[in-house]
């Protein structure tokens, strides 16, 4: 699943790899509700993130998707257990938790030009002080919806709908093709 599609070694300006299978649970409800916040905490170990943020540690994360929606990330095999746990603890509140692991595909972008590769495709201010580790951004990637967050310096995790995986892979490959460095956000990192 996780074979590199454009390696930096091919001359592409960033490495694009398909992310391994990722467990995802969508949780909808009133995010200020104490029961929901406690259920998220006990299922993931993470607090409900602030607006536009992602809380993640040890492969388990919680993404703020909208004022009434969270996306919980965990290992693919842990989804049934976590889902059961969430549904148990949310049985008395108005909330919905669903396994959506197969709804979305993921990509890992890495390299000093990764920011530029994304900035070419998304209407997002990707200046390092405007988009940093801990933020999650849902946006438009070329012609389709996508969301991304940072895994570390120069590493981005991007998710898109699985039906659009081939398209996203193609536009990312074009955006990272050899010789296409624009050096907007990577100027200080690379002399190329």
């Amino acid at each position: 699943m996780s074979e590199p599609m454009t390696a930096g070694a091919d001359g592409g300006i960033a490495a694009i790899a398909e992310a391994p299978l990722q467990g995802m649970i969508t949780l909808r409800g009133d995010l200020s509700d104490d029961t929901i916040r406690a259920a998220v905490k006990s299922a993931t170990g993470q607090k409900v993130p602030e607006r536009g943020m992602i809380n993640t540690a040890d492969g388990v994360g919680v993404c703020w998707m909208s004022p009434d929606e969270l996306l919980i990330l965990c290992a693919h095999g842990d989804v049934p257990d976590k889902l059961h746990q969430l549904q148990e603890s949310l049985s008395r509140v108005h909330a919905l938790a669903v396994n959506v692991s197969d709804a979305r595909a993921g990509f890992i972008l890495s390299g000093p030009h990764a920011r530029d590769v994304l900035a070419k495709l998304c209407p997002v201010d990707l200046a390092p002080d405007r988009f940093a580790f801990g933020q999650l951004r849902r946006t438009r990637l070329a012609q389709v919806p996508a969301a991304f967050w940072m895994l570390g310096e120069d590493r981005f995790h991007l998710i898109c709908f699985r039906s659009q995986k081939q398209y996203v892979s193609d536009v990312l490959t074009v955006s990272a093709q050899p010789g296409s460095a624009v050096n907007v956000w990577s100027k200080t990192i690379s002399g190329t």
Partner: protein
Amino acid sequence: MLILTCPVCGVTAEETEFHGGGEAHLTRHGPGSSDDDFEDYLFMRENPRGVHFERWRHVYGCGKWFHAARCTTTLEVFGTYPAQTTEPPKDLRAKISKKRPGWTWKDLA
């Protein structure tokens, strides 16, 4: 190009991340209303030169609806505000009055 700030998720982006939803603050007339009211509701829209109020949806982001006040000639965005209201907030109207003295829009001024 419009630069809009979604009041729901706080994201500022250009208009291609959003989708316009037409004129704001329509009064809906349905079954039982007079033919004139229904016709007005269905077909009659503002087409102002200057201050305009619109509905927008953050379609590629949080997916929520909100309102925006903008100028149709300069594309200046005066501000955005939540969808859960029937009229623009007072402070936004005051801000517009400062920039466009004497503006009117339907029965607002």
